[in-house]
């Protein structure tokens, strides 16, 4: 079973368009699929689930849509927080939250604090996240240490960079499996450094249709793969 699964929840808008529904219905259906996947992860013993809720590239969507999405996110989190806490889920947020509305920022900080001691499943939600910006901010932190004379430039190594990435909130920062739904075959600036050796799985279903069967299929596919990490055949 993979310890850390990452998901790009793609296809909500297409799902709505295909049914002649407004885009908001797509996002709501997506939220339902998300809740079901969180539950499956808890039941199957997956330790970390990272979801790409909102990319920093998504701000270019119509404002009406991004406002709806943020509203849905806030409502969903308020409604589910109690349930997630009692289910032993720890919530962490990665990404630049400073651009979000104040009430949402407060809610996110509160959610992280309330659930910090939970240990059944670590749910990492990427909001206004960019893989490249994550790497840049880690390098910036190291650059400041160099400036302050704490380390020399030549001492910067992969271990130090990893320690400064936003995924340093977990002991398993590298996803074993990345699932992207809706048939699009690219990473779209999600976790870049962390995906170095991750098995990638591209599902044809749109995110709202991604349920237990599809998730099981993805995990089976992962279990059949041979991971060599560039070295000898395992």
């Amino acid at each position, binding site marked *: 079973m993979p310890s850390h699964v990452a998901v790009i929840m793609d296809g909500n808008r297409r799902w709505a368009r295909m049914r002649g529904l407004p885009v908001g219905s797509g996002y709501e259906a997506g939220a339902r699929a998300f809740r079901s996947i969180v539950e499956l992860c808890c039941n199957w013993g997956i330790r970390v689930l990272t979801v790409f809720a909102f990319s920093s590239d998504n701000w270019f969507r119509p404002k009406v849509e991004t406002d709806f999405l943020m509203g849905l996110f806030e409502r969903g989190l308020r409604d589910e927080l109690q349930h997630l806490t009692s289910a032993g889920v720890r919530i962490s947020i990665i990404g630049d939250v400073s651009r979000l509305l104040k009430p949402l920022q407060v809610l996110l900080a509160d959610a992280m604090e309330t659930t910090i001691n939970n240990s059944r499943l670590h749910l990492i939600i990427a909001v206004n996240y960019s893989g490249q910006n994550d790497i840049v901010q880690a*390098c910036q932190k190291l*650059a400041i240490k160099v400036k302050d004379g704490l380390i020399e430039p030549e001492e910067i190594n992969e271990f130090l*960079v990893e320690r400064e990435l936003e995924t340093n909130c977990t002991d398993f920062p590298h996803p074993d499996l990345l699932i992207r739904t809706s048939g699009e075959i690219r990473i779209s*600036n999600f976790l*870049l450094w962390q995906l170095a050796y991750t098995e990638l799985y591209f599902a044809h279903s749109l995110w709202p249709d991604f349920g237990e069967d599809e998730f099981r299929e993805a995990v089976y596919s992962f279990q059949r793969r041979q991971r060599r990490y560039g070295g000898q055949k395992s």
Partner: protein
Amino acid sequence: MDGKRNTILFKLFGSSISYMRRCLFSVLSVGPVPNHLAFILDGNRRYAKKWNLGEGMGYRAGFLSLMSLIKYCYELGVKYVSIYAFSIDNFRRRPEEVQCVMDLMLEKIEGLLKEESLVNQYGVRVYFIGNLKLLHEPVRLAAERAMKATSNNNNSILLICVAYTSTDEIVHAAQESCEDKWATTQSSANIKDSQDGEEKDTDDVIKLSDIESHMYMRVAPDPDILVRTSGETRLSNFLLWQTSNCLLYSPKALWPEIGLRHLVWGVLNFQRAHPYLERGRKQP
């Protein structure tokens, strides 16, 4: 007499195949053609095992496929081709295997420098991308000679990633950015006063553009398609930064089995996804 006739027939056959290929490429070129293709050459060892070939023969078969594929790419009008020839992780393989690959690389790099080689035929400039200090000395020297010898070619570019991993590239870029930044700060601090201290603080932090300008791969734009053969669907620490919005394609064929049909299929997929990719790129 028979031998001469066979040679003529063979040449005619070769020319017609070549002609048909050029026609196919003309049709493909009606749509957008990728500017930069990247390849992870996976499956050479499995190929050797599949056909009961000796140690190292899989890599040699892989090299022949590589030459054909590069030729097709340049004929199609692809300007940049990158290949993941040897990862830093691959140094962990058996020493005999590593030595075999190093020997083959040395042989082929020296071959590149010959007059009749592909790079001279197609005017290809060659770059060796990676932490070249980790290579065996003869290979590193040959690589440097090849880069120098082809530096005036400008039709197309071939980037050979050896002793490379993306995380190593990023670390190296961060190190160089810091060294550059503090070297400039030191020299300007000797001249300027510390009155505008606050402004200096923001300038001192390294930015995305600093990192990008120190990446080994700064000599090429981001790839449009990343192809990994042998059906494995992972990046294996190759161009993580540069492929953030790139189309991924993983045909099941082992690297030595890759052919024209895979290139055509990859390009067709690229053309289908192109409007979406372009929209993503235009957003600042």
